[in-house]
């Protein structure tokens, strides 16, 4: 006799439930119970669970039906989702593949000076530039230059796309409180959902060999800070200055381009810095779904327990992270300095 039998007969639902004598094992617990010959349910929680209810009434779901239901629902929606999402995201694959090809095809004697020049242009700081040059040399020294470039190409594409989408979304959020309220929970979700979890539906949707698979995973994870900080930055713009802009008859576009975006720039740059860091954090996980780069070596280290391979690749990622962080931070302080608050 199961615990809730009386409840269902009291409600007159025994008929509807069907016979509960069906002794076919329905769950692992049932099987275990049959084998052990003991009562399956331990002490009951005050909240009825699907499995407990099911014991008394066949019509009620089991908990595993919930997970099954989600899966079946997703699989049912998959063809539609795929026909819509596939063409939309296809350019991402092209961009990732293109960038990868470009970064690999570019000979080092162009690529390395170019990277150093970009560092100098962005940071205008001699120590930072020297650090970048030395780090690249170190990577090359342990033959990790090529994989590092692969990783860099992925980060380059994903960060660019994050900024291209994140800044406008952030602007829209700063304009409308309602939009902000509806987007913030979504951003919280994207930031807290374990990163492996959004790989699963993506694997269902796209083929594992397509580069957009990891591209989407990285972008979804990394776009959050740039959205948040763009919104924050625009909301923090001095109200007096906005009032002056209004008083001199600026329209919304002029206000955005001439006042809000320039004054929010330090915050937006901080967001971009975070976005770069977060996309780098996703690189290892993305290598699970065929993203090339340093992550692959880390993964090899884990799979084959090749300690050295994993650690060298890991340090390579750290170096890359420090390079990207220092350059973008130096650029940020440079922007900050030119607009000292009065």
């Amino acid at each position, binding site marked *: 006799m199961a615990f809730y039998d009386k409840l269902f007969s009291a409600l007159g639902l025994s008929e509807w439930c069907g016979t509960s004598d069906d002794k076919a094992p329905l769950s692992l617990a049932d099987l275990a119970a049959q084998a052990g010959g003991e009562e399956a349910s331990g002490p009951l929680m005050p909240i009825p669970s699907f499995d407990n209810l099911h014991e008394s009434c066949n019509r009620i779901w089991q908990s595993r039906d919930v997970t099954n239901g989600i899966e079946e629902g997703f699989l049912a929606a998959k063809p539609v989702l795929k026909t819509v999402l596939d063409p939309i995201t296809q350019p991402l694959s092209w961009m990732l593949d293109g960038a990868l090809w470009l970064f690999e095809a570019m000979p080092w004697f162009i690529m390395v000076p170019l990277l150093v020049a970009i560092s100098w242009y962005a940071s205008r700081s001699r120590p930072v530039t020297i650090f970048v040059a030395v780090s690249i040399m170190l990577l090359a020294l342990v033959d990790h230059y090529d994989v590092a470039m692969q990783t860099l190409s992925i980060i380059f594409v994903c960060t660019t796309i994050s900024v291209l989408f994140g800044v406008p979304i952030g602007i829209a959020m700063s304009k409308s409180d309602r939009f902000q309220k509806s987007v913030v929970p979504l951003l919280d979700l994207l930031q807290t959902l374990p990163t492996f979890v959004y790989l699963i539906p993506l694997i269902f949707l796209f083929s594992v060999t397509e580069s957009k698979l990891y591209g989407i995973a990285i972008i979804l994870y990394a776009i959050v800070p740039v959205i948040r900080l763009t919104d924050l930055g625009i909301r923090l713009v001095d109200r007096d200055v906005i009032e002056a802009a209004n*008083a*001199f008859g600026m329209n919304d576009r002029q206000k955005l381009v001439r006042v809000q975006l320039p004054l929010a720039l330090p915050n937006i740059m901080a967001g971009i810095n975070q976005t770069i860091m977060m996309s780098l954090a996703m690189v290892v996980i993305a290598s699970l779904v065929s993203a090339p780069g340093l992550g692959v070596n880390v993964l090899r280290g884990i799979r084959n327990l090749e300690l050295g391979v994993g650690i060298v690749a890991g340090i390579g990622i750290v170096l890359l992270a420090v390079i990207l962080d220092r350059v973008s931070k130096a650029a940020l302080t440079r922007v900050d300095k030119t607009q000292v*608050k009065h």
Partner: protein
Amino acid sequence: MTQPMVRLSGLYKIFGARDKDVLHHVQDGMGKEELLAQHGHVLGLNNINIDMQAGEITVVMGLSGSGKSTLIRHLNRLIEPTAGEIIVQGEDVMQLSEDGLRHARQEKMSMVFQKFALLPHKTVLKNAGMPLSVRGEDETTCDREAAKWLERVGLSGFENHYPAQLSGGMQQRVGIARALTANTPIMLMDEAFSALDPLIRTDMQDLLLELQKELHKTIIFITHDLDEALKLADHLVILKDGFVVQQGEPQHILLNPNDPYIEDFVSDINRARVLRVRSIMTPLDGGKVPKDAHGEVDVNDTLESMIARSGGDTSHAYVVKDGEQTVGTLDMTELVRALVPRVASEAGARQS
């Protein structure tokens, strides 16, 4: 009388979600405290009627919370009124479309702010040229006009500095240059000099009067400082709790305050320095010029200078001249009488 440049009539502003619904309470005479206690709405402006004449400086004075900053923001509708009319150059600002309003803000009214509100990422030159570039003028025109007005306010040589590199007084000069570059007939100045230290403030007041002498703009100036108000005003409006306590010619208000609130204000200032001969002289009105006059004085001399001139002797009398014309006589006894503080203000307006 010619049409005023700006006319505010029956202007009400109530802050709160249901401002239109509680308006009739205010119109029926409900005060600020009652409104807040009973309906949770804040009374900003209460039946404001002011005419601002072209070419004059209208000063709106009141303590903080009296609604003066709210009032000035109604003129260019940075704040929307609950009820009332705002007529600028014969045109109802309330009827303007969004584009029309923007146009009016660009072409008719420029504003100077207490906290300067310059763009920190732009140079002084670009800041001053901002109103023109907003209108879509080309860069050369903007820079030329901006440089012209920057020079006029004494800032030539600073064109390529950033606002943060300048002192407060210089930043506000940029603010004034920006308003002048807009070349609008009306200038709104919201406590423009309140954030500056006293000496610089005096400089800026002199600069404003000097500019006004040649430009003849219609200036609406907000301040909490009576000395500043009396120095600048052609027309003085005194605001308290959102309604106009008294308005008129400043000298007249000084001599005939109609409210303990104003008497209290007025008792603090140096009357001899503010009052002028014209306000207290005895008009000639066909009467005879006294033979024993000790000399001639100008109508616009201050009483302070008269005391210095008479050496403190109250028996003296003077003939008052307006240019070439003799317009009245001034008896030093009357002058001293005018300097006597009003009794009411001593009696206790302050304690109340």
